[in-house]
């Protein structure tokens, strides 16, 4: 039986607290240096508390609680990320399996990968004739690359040893796919997905800032328009925390599928 509370977890808590305190101090310092142009942690905390007392209120389309905003952003991120993954994984498997395909598609990937989500946005709007569609489109198209690259890398790096097992014991195509290719590449794919969700989350803010409507990105834009810096700071913390949680989530998944360390 594991001890739930031990010296290790006590340490973790201590370090985390220390970390937060340091962050707060730096922040306070910045606030002082900028002569309160940037609000300090305490001011922000007041606004934050207020926002979180009723996170899910909904007074019509332009007046929603931060919880609602967050939910709508997360929803978009998952859709865009899901579509991106559904494209990236099979394509990655194809590219990874065949050197020919790899060489043929690699330049396309390399050119499209560094394009900023914001540059895609107008295209998405026209193609989908809907801001929601465009937002999801830019999430999809900017977040699929890490998954694609990692999947193709994973598949192409299957050790000859493992392939030889398949050959030597006469594995069928299907058995090769399910017993060798996928299990081997899974950790790579999940690493890719983890990077992808990070990007997707980063892009949602951009997308919503441009497309307007709802979500945490629009919240930032709106707070900026009203120059409510406290709200922007709260939003930054929320974005950071949610990003961190998403990352941790995938970290857990990653460890669950990492046969290497088992």
């Amino acid at each position, binding site marked *: 039986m594991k001890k739930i509370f031990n010296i290790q977890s006590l340490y973790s808590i201590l370090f985390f607290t220390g970390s937060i305190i340091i962050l707060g101090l730096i922040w306070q310092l910045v606030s002082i240096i900028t002569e309160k142009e940037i609000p300090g942690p305490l001011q922000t905390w007041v606004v934050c508390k207020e926002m979180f007392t009723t996170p899910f209120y909904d007074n*019509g*389309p332009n007046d929603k609680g931060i919880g609602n905003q967050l939910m709508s952003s997360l929803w978009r991120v998952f859709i865009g990320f899901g579509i991106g993954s559904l494209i990236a994984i099979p394509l990655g498997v194809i590219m990874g399996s065949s050197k020919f395909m790899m060489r043929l598609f690699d330049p396309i990937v390399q050119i499209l990968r560094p394009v900023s989500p914001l540059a895609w946005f107008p295209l998405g709007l026209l193609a989908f004739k809907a*801001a929601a569609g465009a937002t999801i489109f830019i999430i999809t198209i900017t977040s699929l690359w890490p998954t694609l690259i990692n999947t193709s890398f994973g598949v192409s790096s299957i050790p000859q040893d493992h392939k030889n097992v398949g050959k030597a014991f006469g594995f069928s195509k299907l058995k090769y796919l399910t017993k060798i290719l996928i299990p081997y590449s899974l950790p790579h794919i999940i690493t890719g997905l983890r990077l992808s969700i990070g990007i997707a989350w980063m892009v949602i803010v951009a997308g919503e800032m441009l497309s307007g409507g709802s979500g945490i990105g629009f919240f930032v834009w709106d707070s900026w*328009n009203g120059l409510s810096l406290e709200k922007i700071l709260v939003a930054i913390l929320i974005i950071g925390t949610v990003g961190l949680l998403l990352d941790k989530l995938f970290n857990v998944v990653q460890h669950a599928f990492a046969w290497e360390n088992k």
Partner: protein
Amino acid sequence: AKKIKLGFIPLTDCAPLVVAKELGLFAKYGVDVELSKEASWANIRDKILNGELDGAHCLFSMPFSVYTGIGGKAGSEMKIAMVLNNNGQAITLSKDFCGLLGYKEIAKVGAAIKKLQAKKEVTFAMTFPGGTHDIWLRNWLAAAGINQKSVGIITIPPPQMVANMKVDNMEGFSVGEPWNGVAAAQGIGFTHIASQDIWKDHPEKALVVNSAFANSDKADLKKVMKAILEACKWLDVMANRKKAAAWLTKPYYVNAPLAVIEARLMGSSDLGCDLGVKRYKDDFMTFYKGGIVNTPKKSNGMWFLAQFVRFGMLKAEPNYAAVADKLILDDLFAEVAKEMAVPVQPDMKPFKTTYDVMFDPANISAYLKTTKK
């Protein structure tokens, strides 16, 4: 009935939509309207064109700019159902100009800009290429004798103007209230000239709709127009404006300080930069004026088209009348006006703006020959 979605940008002149909503006028006329705050004019354009918005609070000249390919894909049609307001825009100059020139001192503009240009590139911001603010800015530059190409002109969404000027991103901007007021109140800049000083009682925002909505849901559109018309009427009762300001200041509408919105809505502008307070008598932001405000005039549209040619935004002259005909739903407005017993104003008369020559819609080439560029 289906939900009708109208977009708006955080600006005082979105008031007719807000009032119609808050007073329950949309419901009164039997339409279910949702107001949606948008991020920029480009965003509104795209959403109207792709049908995400049925209509929006929109710059009067934007449909012309889009149709002619200046601010959009040439040939895209956005229809003007009615005008929402006259006046109430301004050109704000940053505090760099403070002391160099004052309110309406157009003659000093040239020297002041020259002086600044010795130190840095001088940039002005407007809200949309070919939009009303773009045209006010260019008219002002022309009146002051500034070469349009000698200064930077950039596009920035209205609510972003103040923040951008604060960080020295530009030296002046042309935008609607309350952002000029906010800049003055924050001491970032001062109101140099109001749009009504450039063209008294000019058309400013319009209710612009998706053409599918205009064609197939005409009945609903008319109900919407009626509600808004009634709101405009309500807004022109000065006693009501305080109440309107209280709605507009809300974070989910304009999200700007109540005092600023209210003062400028009431026709009183604290100019900033110790220039004192300027009170407008009848040429502050108007919404109705017995229906004079709301009639969408083709001649006005043609004037904007002429401006595009004047400032080199269009290389070739368009068919002014045909374009205006296509984009302005004057017949529809006439029907609504009739049903509401609102007098429709006569159109196609020559008129003159403050610093410009006479404009005769029947003889635009004459105007273009004589006007300053």
